[in-house]
């Protein structure tokens, strides 16, 4: 018999066994797990079918084709072409690719934790790995898609600019936003299974509420400055507009300019930070019980 005495000497007993958590003390395992899960998924898509990557690319390209034909060729939305609409095709494709990243990361994050049930219930690992791997996978895809955008941009005659260096910052900003939303959604989905259809609709709304198809510069003259400001608070709008400005043409105003001043860029930044914080808080709170609540 070795029942433990009630007065227990804690020293020399080793590590306390804690329950499941979102995070970990072993960051190298955390990263390797995230990377490996994302890499395996990527590999599957890449080599899983004969056309592999082509299918992955088809979605943004098809969307681009449809939107381009419909809005530019048929409806002539950009009829009175301003200087800001130079290389409209590149602006459109780039925006679609960036938005696709956000939609893919958040959309597949929703079910991710529940779908990885076999892992969650069978082994101890930092739970945050799951939504992070989803975002990382989306980033792999984004990288490849951006290569296509680059080729297209050069073919269209976009001149390389120093401001292209802003791209990593823009992607990082977008990735933090996507991670925040991914954490929030995947944690909520454990308990509320209607998060998925809700998010599909919200995602669709966000697509039209962000300057994917129409540059904000085009409609700027038609609405009040307050509305422009409110519109630009949408972090997606900030990223997409700055992408157009920095990557395609300086003729379209920068996000900072549309918000009023550079300092006001802090508003969407603060918003993203808040979304990330809330997402993490919710996920962290849910993490210990995920295995039981699935």
């Amino acid at each position, binding site marked *: 018999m*070795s029942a*433990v005495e009630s007065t227990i000497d*804690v020293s020399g007993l080793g590590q306390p*066994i*804690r329950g*499941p958590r979102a995070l970990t003390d072993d960051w190298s*395992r955390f990263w390797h797990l995230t990377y*490996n899960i994302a890499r395996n998924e990527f590999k*599957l898509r890449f080599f899983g079918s004969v056309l592999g990557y082509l299918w992955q690319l088809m979605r943004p390209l098809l969307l681009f084709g449809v939107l381009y034909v419909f809005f530019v060729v048929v409806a002539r939305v950009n009829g009175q072409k301003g200087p800001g609409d130079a290389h409209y095709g590149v602006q459109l494709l780039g925006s679609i690719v960036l938005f696709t990243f956000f939609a893919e990361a958040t959309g597949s994050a929703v079910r991710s934790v529940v779908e990885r049930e076999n892992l969650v219930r069978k082994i101890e690992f930092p739970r945050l790995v799951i939504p992070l791997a989803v975002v990382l996978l989306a980033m792999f895809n984004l990288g490849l898609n951006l290569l296509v955008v680059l080729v297209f941009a050069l073919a269209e005659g976009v001149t390389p600019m120093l401001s292209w260096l802003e791209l990593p910052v823009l992607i990082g900003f977008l990735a933090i936003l996507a991670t925040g939303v991914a954490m929030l959604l995947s944690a909520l989905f454990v308990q509320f299974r209607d998060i998925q259809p809700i998010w599909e609709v919200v995602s669709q709304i966000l697509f039209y509420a962000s300057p994917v198809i129409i540059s904000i510069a085009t409609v700027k003259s038609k609405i009040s400055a307050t509305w422009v400001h409110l519109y630009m608070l949408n972090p997606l709008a900030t990223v997409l507009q700055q992408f157009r400005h920095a990557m395609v043409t300086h003729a379209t105003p920068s996000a900072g300019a549309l918000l009023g001043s550079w300092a006001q860029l802090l508003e969407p930044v603060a918003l993203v930070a808040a979304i990330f914080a809330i997402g993490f808080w919710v996920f962290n709170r849910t993490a*210990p019980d995920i295995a039981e609540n699935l």
Partner: protein
Amino acid sequence: MSAGPAIVVDRVSKTFRIPEERTHTLKERALHPMRRSRNEVFTALDDISFQVDSGEFFGIVGRNGSGKSTLLKCLAGIYGVEAGRMWCNGRLSTFIELGVGFNPDLAAFDNVVTNGIMLGLSPREARARYRRIIEFAELEEFQDLKLKNYSSGMYVRLAFSVAIQVDADILLIDEVLAVGDASFQQKCFDVFNDMRTAGKTIVFVTHDMGAVNRFCHRAVLLERGRMVAIGEPAAVGQAYLELNFGREVHQHADGTLSRIGNGAARVQEAWIEDEAAGRWAVYSQGYPVVLKALVSFEREVTDPALKVTFRNAEHEIAAVASTATAGAAGTFQAGQQAMFSLRIENYLAPGRYFTDVDLVRTDNSLDLIDRYLDTLEFMVGGVSSLGGYVDLPYAASVERVESAETASAELR
């Protein structure tokens, strides 16, 4: 063997809340924000305390739903606990299921690396050990195949091979021993014995007492989330078998049932005991058991005998014994009582038995006086037999015999 505790569990309790009415959607929650869902609380573990010494092979046994797997998951850090604390000393690895994180669409290499990382290896270590893993799993020819094209045996072999390559100090294992074909099983058992010798601490969850006896130094028995017994495997095994079958033994049927027999006498009570008059649910093979029956006579009966029929779990008759062999019992008058007793050398094959106790007349054994209302149940415990209904006591010998040819050749 001991260098301080490897695992300490101190008054650990774990409850699951089972909502009576689970709100599955945000809509329901939004429409009825004030409705509090009532929870049923299920106590899976109740005040569990024990410690596992370093280098010990420790078993956790219990019936289905006894909480043994929950305890393992708490130790593994998959479930959090409500009360109590736990410590572990050293690197801990969990095998609740083999091949956690295996992706059927990928080949062996990617799966080995991912699974290895899951179990605590670094990617570099996992890659370096890949060759050894594949060799141990005997899958050299199949390593380029996707896992979905593996047979289940190959799959399990690969998973097990990864698992044993993990250098953990403490392994938590949940009934994954019996995997693969016979030769691979043998390999697994060798590995477990190696681990024992290497001084690794192993916590092993099972409902198979045989495995506990074979491997474990000590074991704990759980029942309904409580600790029932802890200690030597043999003692825990006895407690476990009694738990399994004990409650069904010596329960008397309702006396108002119509009885079989001519009614000239009644078997008032019948029971099985050991030579020291102890009544158990389990009797060890090789030690005599005594069957006793108290009979009261309603009418005059001449030369009654007690006939006992042992049926095995398949309800086949394994053995029959009768007091008739002791000779004529004489005549009993109405109102008299008699105690019948049969001492039986217990060579019954290990397993579960149902015993019919009949009072018969010796002149014609078909003439049934009374059948005891209750079927006595008991278990025979022992080392696994070679088969058959009984394990006869026998002496065996092998002697070399010169063949006729050689013998005749020498003669010439």
